[in-house]
């Protein structure tokens, strides 16, 4: 399970995957630029770092797609996870329409593509993993551990805010809060430094452990602990943009699964961060980035798939049987497509409705009101 990546890089090493071909390198280069730009864009209040102050403009009512602490001195927008917990703490007084609508729409449009492309903490984890060290490869154990994020989501993001009226994840776990807000703010602000105690020590220790884990294990926080990834994972099967697998071309060789450093069982399952590493590994070129159709399974617009479909149709006319696509009959594929399309439309309608009601109910101001003030829990002095 543990390997050394100095000479013989393992198949799930992202470095080797990026080296696979010019096409793969190009995809990963674009992804890296996007990650960097997202990190800069989320944290472009540069003077905040120098002054040890947080941005207090109205844009703080808008949530970023990725995990980015709003108490970070550079942050110009709100963290969706922090805002969700804050809204749940206040849910006794007002239902969190706005943040739920935001999460729903972001999940529906992008799913865990956000984790792969738009999360600054994801970028940080990937850079940490580039440090030379023994590497822990994915296994049955890591697959089991990957369910830990759902436990954290239920316990720290939902249960503790609702019952204990505290943002449990921000307060006790969030390494992004400690790294982006706790350390810079306490470094610059003496008054805050004086308030640090056991909780701050705990959070710094946890951050250290997570950093070490990320060096050893690809995206360890993302895979095992991140509740935002857990939320977006629910939308992966119906997300409108991301990787798509053309089942007419797929031979089920599992080359994509073996190449993937995450704990996926198939492309686009709940563990897939849609990073596109698998695209290059597919021998038949069945995996693409794109806007998905209703099924999200069958690509209808590629010439290759059209050719295969035509071939299968011909064989049908010759044999008189319904053609099979990816082990499913054409009828089943159509039925699945309709179900997924219906779910996507229902989610879109629900997301827009929640967002509209939330904006009308003043939820935007509510999110902003919290985000423009230092979250002591995020720092670890709550």
């Amino acid at each position, binding site marked *: 399970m543990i390997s050394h990546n100095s000479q013989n890089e393992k198949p799930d090493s992202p470095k080797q995957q990026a080296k696979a071909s010019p096409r793969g390198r190009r995809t990963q280069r674009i992804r890296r630029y*996007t990650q960097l730009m997202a990190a800069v864009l989320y944290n472009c209040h540069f003077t905040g770092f120098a002054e040890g*102050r947080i941005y207090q403009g109205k844009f703080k009512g808008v949530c970023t797609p990725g995990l980015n602490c709003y108490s970070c001195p550079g942050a110009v927008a709100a963290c969706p996870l922090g805002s969700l917990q804050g809204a749940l703490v206040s849910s006794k007084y*007002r239902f969190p329409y706005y943040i739920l609508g935001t999460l729903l729409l972001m999940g529906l449009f992008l799913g865990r593509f956000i984790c792969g492309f738009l999360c600054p903490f994801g970028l940080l984890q990937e850079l940490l993993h580039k440090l030379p060290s023994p590497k822990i490869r994915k296994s049955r154990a890591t697959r089991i551990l990957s369910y830990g994020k759902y436990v954290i989501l239920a316990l720290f993001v939902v249960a503790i805010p609702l019952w204990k009226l*505290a943002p449990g994840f921000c307060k006790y776990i969030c390494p992004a809060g400690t790294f982006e807000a706790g350390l810079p703010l306490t470094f610059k602000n003496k008054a805050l430094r004086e308030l640090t105690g056991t909780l701050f020590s705990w959070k710094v220790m946890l951050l250290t452990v997570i950093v070490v884990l990320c060096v050893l294990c690809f995206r360890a926080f993302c895979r095992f602990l991140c509740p935002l990834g857990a939320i977006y994972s629910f939308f992966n099967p119906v997300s409108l943009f991301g990787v798509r697998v053309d089942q007419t071309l797929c031979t089920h060789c599992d080359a994509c699964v073996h190449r993937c450093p995450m704990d996926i069982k198939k492309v686009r399952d709940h563990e897939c961060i849609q990073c596109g590493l698998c695209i290059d590994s597919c021998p038949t070129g069945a995996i693409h980035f794109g806007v998905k159709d209703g099924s999200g399974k069958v690509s209808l617009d590629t010439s290759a798939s059209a050719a295969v479909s035509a071939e299968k149709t011909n064989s049908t006319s010759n044999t008189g049987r319904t053609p099979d696509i990816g082990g499913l009959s054409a009828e089943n594929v159509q039925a699945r497509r309709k179900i997924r399309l219906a779910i996507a439309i229902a989610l879109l309608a629900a997301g827009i409705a929640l967002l509209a009601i939330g904006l009308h109910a003043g939820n935007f101001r509510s999110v902003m009101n919290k985000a423009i*003030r230092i979250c*002591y829990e995020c720092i670890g002095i709550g």
Partner: protein
Amino acid sequence: MKKKPMKVMKRKLTVLLAALTLVAAVVLVSGCGKDPGDDLPIVTATPTVSGGDPSAAPTPDRFPNRANADTGKGTPKELEAGDVAPEFSLTMMDGSTFRMSEHDDEVVLLNFWATWCGPCVNEMPDLMQLASENIPGFTICFISIDDSVSDVKDFLSNKSYNNSIIGYDKGARICSYYPTGGIPYTVTVVNGVVKETVLGSRSYDKYKALVTNALSGK
């Protein structure tokens, strides 16, 4: 033949993305990046205690250039020891009115809080206990910065707190004149002049010592 246009397109795409990020960053920081107090009118600079005489008997004109949150007079700025506490009036939860200038001969503890703020809610019982001790020459005023007054009412409905010392800052009017990066934020005012600002929550003993110290140096 095919690779060259692809390379050019890729470069163009990268440049376009970088330009978009830069433009968005500039727009965010400049256009939308106004602080809550930016819209407030600037009339005169906030006077500091160096221009007045804190030991003089309190009168309505004691600090003629005093910033006023009700009228928008003065420039909101982060308060420091020695600044004159901006004037404001606040309707308390029992319907009474708290006016800052009416307490210029006392030690006043202004506590900015919100129902969603864990540390604020946690320190509230300690501050309430301090208030219940009826220390002569000492007043405490809780200023809620919640989203609506109904949130505060709901919060207080099952608590036995003294509603005459809790008020709701509608539209963050007062908060903009007492700007802070976070809450709980407590401002100790002695004879109308800021003595100390406290960021974050403190224990009962710390607040008690703070008040005793302020009263002894009054």
